[in-house]
């Protein structure tokens, strides 16, 4: 009886070990071991009507998506900074069972109010502006960026009236930059004149604002407005120093030509990469680190310095 029991136990151990051998033999064949993690669907919803401003970031996003197994849908709005339109796009994406949303909020507060009503557990990651209930990633410190840009203007002698233009007053990120810049300017004795502009409207209003004679400097705080203001400045032949945010290809050209005196910039490629990486981590339930991107203030003569080249012009 005891002998039989021992034999049964030995056979059981043998079977278990044999099973372990087979399992370890098949282990590399298992989908979980072959790195074939399910594809993460990511919807990137911008707040602009034109995605060309995000071309560098898009390169980073694509690289991250390729490496981490994600599928990207980059969506623009019919009208730049239209919060209602953005909410509609967001609802549509939620309806298509996207795994995670990356949003550049046009109206963070409105979006925060509307999101809970969607009744979805879809994780949301934002860029540029923080959003309640969402993870803010791949964004520079907005206030610090505004202060640094204002300091550059002050250093250049902007002492009188400085025009601060904000095309996205509902965007808390952009507004934070402007507010911080205003503080620095006023602390330096300059008179900060804050004005809102509508990027989707004809540029007449912006032209009138730029043509004000008493301006010692103009500051804008987002790439789209930087491009538009630089373009108008050049076409109008204005001499007033322009300070902007974001170095797109056009902005770089104007920076080089001196149309833009200085610009606050960061690696858009890194921003796009980190945003998608964070989104994938959110979708897979792994650790999603909130990182602030380092920024810098660049002037035309510094544009071709090796480090700036590498950050501003992604290798294509």
């Amino acid at each position, binding site marked *: 009886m005891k002998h039989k029991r021992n034999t049964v136990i*030995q056979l059981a*151990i*043998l079977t278990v*070990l*044999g099973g*372990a*051998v087979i*399992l*370890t*033999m098949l*282990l*590399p064949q298992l989908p979980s*071991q*072959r*790195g074939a993690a399910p594809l993460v669907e990511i919807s990137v919803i911008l707040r602009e009507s034109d995605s060309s401003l995000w071309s560098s970031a898009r*390169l*980073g996003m694509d*690289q991250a998506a390729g490496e981490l197994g994600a599928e990207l849908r980059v969506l623009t709005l019919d009208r730049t900074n239209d919060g209602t339109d953005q909410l509609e796009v967001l609802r549509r994406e939620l309806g298509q069972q996207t795994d995670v949303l990356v949003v550049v909020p046009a109206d963070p507060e409105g979006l925060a109010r509307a999101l809970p009503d969607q009744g979805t557990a879809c994780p949301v990651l934002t860029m540029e502006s923080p959003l309640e209930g969402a993870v803010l990633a791949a964004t520079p410190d907005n206030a610090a960026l505004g202060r640094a840009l204002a300091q550059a203007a002050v250093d250049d002698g902007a002492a009188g009236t400085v025009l601060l233009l904000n095309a996205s007053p509902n965007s808390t990120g952009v507004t934070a930059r402007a507010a911080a810049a205003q503080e620095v300017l006023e602390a330096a004795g300059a008179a900060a004149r804050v004005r809102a502009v509508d990027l989707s409207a004809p540029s007449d209003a912006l032209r009138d604002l730029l043509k004000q004679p008493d301006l010692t400097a103009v500051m804008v705080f987002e790439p789209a407005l930087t491009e538009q203001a630089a373009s108008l400045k050049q076409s109008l032949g204005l001499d007033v120093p322009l300070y902007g945010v974001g170095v797109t*290809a*056009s902005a*770089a*050209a104007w920076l*080089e*030509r001196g149309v833009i005196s200085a610009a606050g910039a960061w*690696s858009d*490629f*890194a921003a796009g*990469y*980190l945003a998608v990486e964070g989104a994938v981590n959110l979708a897979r339930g792994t650790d999603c680190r909130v990182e602030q991107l*380092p920024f810098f203030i660049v002037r*035309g*003569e510094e544009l*071709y310095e*090796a480090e700036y*080249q*590498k*950050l*501003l*012009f*992604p*290798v*294509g």
Partner: protein
Amino acid sequence: MRALLKRLAGRIAQGYRSMSIQLVLSLSFTAVALAGVVFLGAGLLLRFSDSTQALTQESTQRVLAQVNMNLDSHLRRMMRVSDTAYYRVIKKTDLTLWSMTAAMDLLYEENRDALVSIAVFNEGGGLEAAVPLSASKPSAIPNESPWFRLALEKMENLHFSTPHIQDLFDDPDNRFRWVVSLSRHVQLTRDGNTESGVLLVDMSFSGVAQVCRDVELPNGGYVYLTDRTGEIIYHPRQQLIYSGLLEENNLTAAGYSDGSHRERFQGQDREVTVKTVGYTGWKLVGVVPAGRLWGEGGSLPLFGISLLLFSAFLMAFLNFRVSAYISDPILRLDQAVKELEAGRDAVEFEEGGCYELRRLSRSIASMVSTMRHLMDDIIQQEAQKRRSELEVLQSQINPHFLYNTLDSVIWMTESGRYQESIQMVTSLARLFRIALSRGKRIIPLADELEHARHYLNIQQIRYKNKFESSVTAGPDTDGLYTLKLTIQPLLENAIYHGITGSEEDGLISVDARREGDDLIIDVSDNGVGMRPEVAATLLSEERPALRTTGSGIGVRNVHQRIRLTFGEPYGLTIFSEPDEGTTIRLRLPALDLEQAEQYQQEGAP
């Protein structure tokens, strides 16, 4: 250390001595087999690892050689463009008389897929010609650029730069393109005089990237390209490195010679293969993560460990059974020997197992059988010897009995008691005839009783009828046989110890009857008797041998003779009470003629 080894050896020896042969066999087999498996497995694993590593290196080197060839081809094409521009255009152009632009434009158009611009600068950095872009950027200062300085410093060489943004000419599309600059010193002709200048061929970075891109190495490896100082020219994740999101061990790799190297970077072991790109001194670096040689997620070691465990347990399992099969006949033999030692008679020696064991079993069985036969013979011989001694003693006539009887005959004859003397002589003659019985040990019961009767007659005459006697036999005792001279010693004992000491008239009776398969003969007297505890010791082996004053043979001898002849169940039983008398009961097998003859033959000397 030596003491430790000695102690270890001692423990092993002690364990060995206390272990069963099956355990020793199974443990030894398993240990040896396991050592073999581990040795073989380790050898194969090392061989596999070496082969895999060699294959990886070979494969990487082959891929790098191919990439190097493609890259070399691409760079040589650019050098040919530069040569063509110099020898076919610049050298043949006097700048005072002609422009180089048309010829260079043609050259550019032929290679526009790989070129961004071709430009010629004079020694001061002034632009002499440029295609397709010709508008210099206001901020451009060519003669301060590294490519310009290098070209003038090392005039005999062509110089390749690391990738950078083209920063000399305005691009109407505001494009900032990554280029690799190829510069060289040239001699410009102006108004018949030669002067130094620099020819710059900006080739598109994408051309270099195209050569290196999509190169796949084993185990998820990749290829990157650096210049001789380690500055990255191409990397599949170049922009991540530029953005500070990734680090590469490029500066260390720049110091490696061509060939394969093992390095550890950011906690990961990597197989790095380096190949220098001919003219430029650039280094192609192939990186293969070494950890993947062991399989994804360490599956290979896991497989090895589980296989080793399975093999070890399977071997132990099988060895245990094989050793049980081998040692089972030995254990059975051992058990049989133990049983033999314990005194068991019917011990079977199974002949199983291998040849040597079967022969050993046969030998032991044969030895035991021989020993048993010898022992039986000895026992039989001893019994026979004892029986013979007893019978010799039994058959001897006490000389005093004979003298006394003959004296009695003489005395009776002299006194004229002829009838009594004749009766005594007749009984004596009859007594001797039956005692001899032609040497037979087993005689008819009737003869034995007659022998007793004649003995009693003689003794009655001698003792002047001091006692009465009777000899009776049941009708069922007819034809039965008994051991010779078994009653007479008892009668002698009754006369000398029972009757002679008694004051009363004695009575001695002999009564034979059959009880089942036994023959019972009671010899009783009404003499002085004895205490039962004394009677119980008369037949004891420990009691000193009794010698009677009669025929000289004691009661115990009769008891021993019966037992030696017929076995333990038979013999004498004494019933006695002081002043009451004694009865000695003989229990014998009820032998018929056939059985008697059989016993007769067995007991024959």
